[in-house]
């Protein structure tokens, strides 16, 4: 098991954890930095400040309680639906590829793609938010026409690692794909 430091496309530090369970089963985990307490504090405080200003002018206590409620609910929603803690790619030779992302709240969403459906794993260029970036993608076969690609499943979508990190994962994956 090795752990390397890389950066994502915005220059933030991320870490790639490669775990080799056997020579045809590998697990890659890209972890984004944890939810920073400072940012949460800044957001919460700003919301409360605004609420207090409103309260100052309206003298309505409902504003304050709703501000507290909004921050709490917003934080819950954020950690449950938005903030992704780490993304895992488990590739098992001849069985398939499992992509899972776990949210900061511990919720996990997993998809398993069988090897028979996978055409290839490639590094792809894509236009994303006024940028052109590289991303690792799984190409799925078209069931009616085995030569064609029906869908492209992008990997590591929340932590967008840079090319050097992708190349490392890509090579490992290709080694396993070449075996079977």
């Amino acid at each position, binding site marked *: 098991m090795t752990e390397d430091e890389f950066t994502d496309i915005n*220059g933030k530090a991320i870490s790639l954890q490669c775990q080799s369970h056997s020579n045809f089963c590998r697990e890659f985990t890209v972890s984004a930095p944890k939810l920073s307490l400072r940012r949460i504090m800044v957001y919460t405080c700003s919301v409360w400040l605004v609420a207090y200003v409103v309260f100052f002018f309206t003298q309505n206590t409902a504003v304050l309680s709703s501000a507290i409620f909004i921050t709490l609910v917003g934080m819950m929603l954020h950690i449950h639906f938005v903030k992704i803690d780490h993304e895992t790619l488990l590739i098992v030779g001849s069985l398939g590829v499992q992509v899972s992302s776990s949210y900061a709240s511990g919720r996990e969403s997993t998809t398993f793609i069988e090897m028979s459906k996978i055409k290839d794993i*490639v590094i792809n260029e*894509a*236009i*994303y938010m006024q*940028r052109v970036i*590289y*991303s690792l993608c799984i190409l799925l076969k078209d069931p009616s026409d085995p030569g064609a690609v029906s869908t*492209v499943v992008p990997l590591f979508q929340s932590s967008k690692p840079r090319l050097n990190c992708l190349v490392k994962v890509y090579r490992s994956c290709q080694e396993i794909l070449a075996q079977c």
Partner: protein
Amino acid sequence: MGQRKRAAIRDSLANQIMDGITLGHQDSPKHNICMVSDFFYPNMGGVESHIYQLSQCLIERGHKVIIVTHAYGNRKGIRYLTNALKVYYLPLQVMYNQSTATTCFHSLPLLRCVFVRERITVVHAHSSFSAMAHDSLFHAKTMGLNTVFTDHSLFGFADVSSVLTNKLLTVSLCDTSHIICVSYTSKENTVLRAALDPEIVSVIPNAVDPTDFTPDPSQRDDSKITIVVISRLVYRKGIDLLGGIIPELCLKYPQLHFLIGGEGPKRIVLEEVREKYQLHDRVRLLGALEHKDVRNVLIQGHIFLNTSLTEAFCMAIVEGASCGLQVVSTRVGGIPEVLPKELITLCEPTVSSLCEGLEMVIARQRAGTVPPPATIHSRVRTLYTWRNVAERTEKVYDRVAKETVQPLHRRLHRLQAHCGPVAGCIFAFIAVLDFLFLLLLQWLVPDSVIDLAVDASGPHALWKRSGNRKHSV
């Protein structure tokens, strides 16, 4: 990630980062060229094929070429064409006639990203109708890149709209390093329009691929005489003249046939003429033609007729002549420069003059005094080749690469001095804003964070090298 598209960077993807040995000849410097235009495949036309063919020949000569255009319908993202020609279809809003809307700023983030990641040294914009081309020139100058512009069209000076566009062109070209025009007439026009120093304007004609347009006399029916017209059916192509020629000649020569390829708003004129004079069997309207079908239509005719009212170069007559047809054309724009006198009959843009010219050619055709198609083809074949165009364009790049791009204060000064007090000040202000926007972007996303792209063509090309390797094995 809406715009993801497959770009099969495969196999030895990472190798190129490790070993960057250059293969190929080292005699001249190699450039990283970015062609920018709103017009590219799948749109069809002269500019589109010019960009494509020129890029192919430049790749052949060892340069790295990428093309940037806007997204066409579902075709967005990054694609590769033949010989690893990389095309960026950027998601910019199309406003009118396949030209993007421009705000001078909104395209900067994407274009900067492309320029940085592809390590572009020369930005080559095409067509004065393309807003994206002008945008990219503007941004490239802000980023300190060398710029080249190719003008494909002619403009008048008479009406209000041309006065405005000419002003914009003046602003856009006033600090562009070099300009390329497709004919001498076009050069005179561009120099006048943009108030340029004629020294920085080169004339490099368009070309046709002669192998695509070979004659085949067996395809044509010699019992009748067929006149072929291939153009978009719009006013500028003189379709109204054609509508006058058809009844005149058809009444005179019963064995005369017309074959008209193309589509456009003026189609209705031709249909009305055909209905009125009952010429359904002699005038065939083929509708829009694909580029590959053009030759099949051309070789069915004896005479190629071009009725354009204005034309910078006119590839169509070269294609017609290359297929061995007798060419009759109006004497407008750069057309007299294109073909030698023995291959073309030039007429004034009036119905009577064109009919006269056509009758003369028909008489010669009947008498059998015209040279055989193969002779004409062999004469035309060597006139315009893309290799030659690429060679001459390369020299322009070499010259441009030696020049230094003007720093911001000089640029502002030049804008104010050259473009008039009002427009100059406005655009100097916009240039400053653009520069500030660039600084902001550089602070938000530093150049070091942008991944350098894997070269698909050029000296460090990944694909070419893997190809070479295969050969050596």
